[in-house]
């Protein structure tokens, strides 16, 4: 059974956590992150997937993500906080992904990154959909 002192210690630590998170919010010292451009998206893809030559890139309309075609793979880049998360899925899966309200939702099949949502002007691309 947990001691009374330990419960107090945990409660005080919880309050301290809340205060520190508040302080971090006040400070506004996250990494400055410009919206992705095609050039910066390509740079990120090259860093994350050095062995994957990029055929075409689609950058999100809000600059918070990008999708690239590399052979039979779709490379996915998604903003999370002030960083990016990258994953690779079969190209066919990307083509078949749900596109609704200007957003494509991709199931990434990874418990650590379950899905990616990217705002695109249109999907799938007409020239590659066949």
């Amino acid at each position: 059974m947990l001691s009374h002192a330990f419960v107090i210690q945990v409660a005080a630590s919880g309050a301290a956590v809340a205060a520190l998170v508040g302080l971090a919010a006040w400070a506004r010292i996250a990494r400055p992150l410009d919206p992705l451009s095609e050039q910066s998206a390509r740079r990120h893809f090259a860093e994350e997937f050095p062995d994957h030559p990029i055929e075409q890139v689609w950058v999100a309309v809000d600059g918070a993500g990008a999708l690239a075609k590399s052979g039979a793979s779709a490379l996915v880049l998604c903003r999370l906080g002030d960083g990016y998360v990258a994953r690779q899925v079969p190209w066919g899966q990307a083509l078949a992904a749900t596109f609704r309200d200007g957003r494509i939702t991709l199931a990434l099949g990874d418990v650590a990154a379950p899905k990616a949502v990217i705002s695109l002007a249109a999907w799938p691309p007409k020239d590659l959909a066949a």
Partner: protein
Amino acid sequence: MIKSAFDPVTLATPFFILTVILEIVLARLGKAEARYEVRDTAVSLAMGLGSTIAGVLLGGAAFATSLWVYQHRLFDIPMTALWAWALVFLAEDLAYYWFHRLSHERRIWWAAHVNHHSSQHYNLSTALRQTWTGDIAGTWVVYLPLSLLGFPPAMVAIQKGISLVYQYWIHTETIRKTPRWFEAVFNTPSHHRVHHARNPRYLDRNYAGILIIWDRLFGTFQPELDEEPCRYGLVKNLGTFNILRVAFHEWIAIGQDVVRQPCHVLGWIFGPPGWSPDGSRETSRQIKARWAAGRAAEPEQRAA
């Protein structure tokens, strides 16, 4: 519930809080190099709090086992002797090196340790992003030889706490380099930044706790290079701030792999992170080899 009467980590908690405040305020004032993202910070601190609770709830088996081993000890080492503390300092730090190395090189132990590396930031709050499942993973078995030698389990527990407190302050970008003699002997912010980096060159390096000499001795030392800034996080970064996914995602992934291919259960559990029977995934060693091959090919490509 078993908890040492003298716990360096509990005693250091006010120091942790004050220094996180200091780092944030100094960064806000432009006097320190530190970046804090709100949700990332919340996850790191909540993981730290959860780790304390998990340690109290689940640490009993580890402590009880060390007590049992201690009953069969080879020597009687007094807790009151100065030489004994000097000896336990070295012995615990060596055990920590191997605990930490195994935590990176075997998937079952990586599952318990991965959350500490899951932030894309490197600041004092990252130090507090601690495991909830270390006691379940059984990483503590590496410390049992110390009890067998004759170090009292309480003494080992205190030294482990001292090591953890030491490792707190090295989780910062604010301190660039310490004096050369210190960098040569001790684990420093610079050495540990390398350990947290996902650059192929830096993967699986600098496992030290307090003394960096173990990495130099066992060939895992890598200095931080000015020409290659550290990029922090995992080879495949997390796509969520959901704390339950942060804490358990690798355990779930292991379970999914084992269920899908039970005939490869040993490889899935005890293989290195990134191992797969068909080679469709990459281990750190393979990533480093690919990076090295690409680097070797660069001058030839330039010459052509």
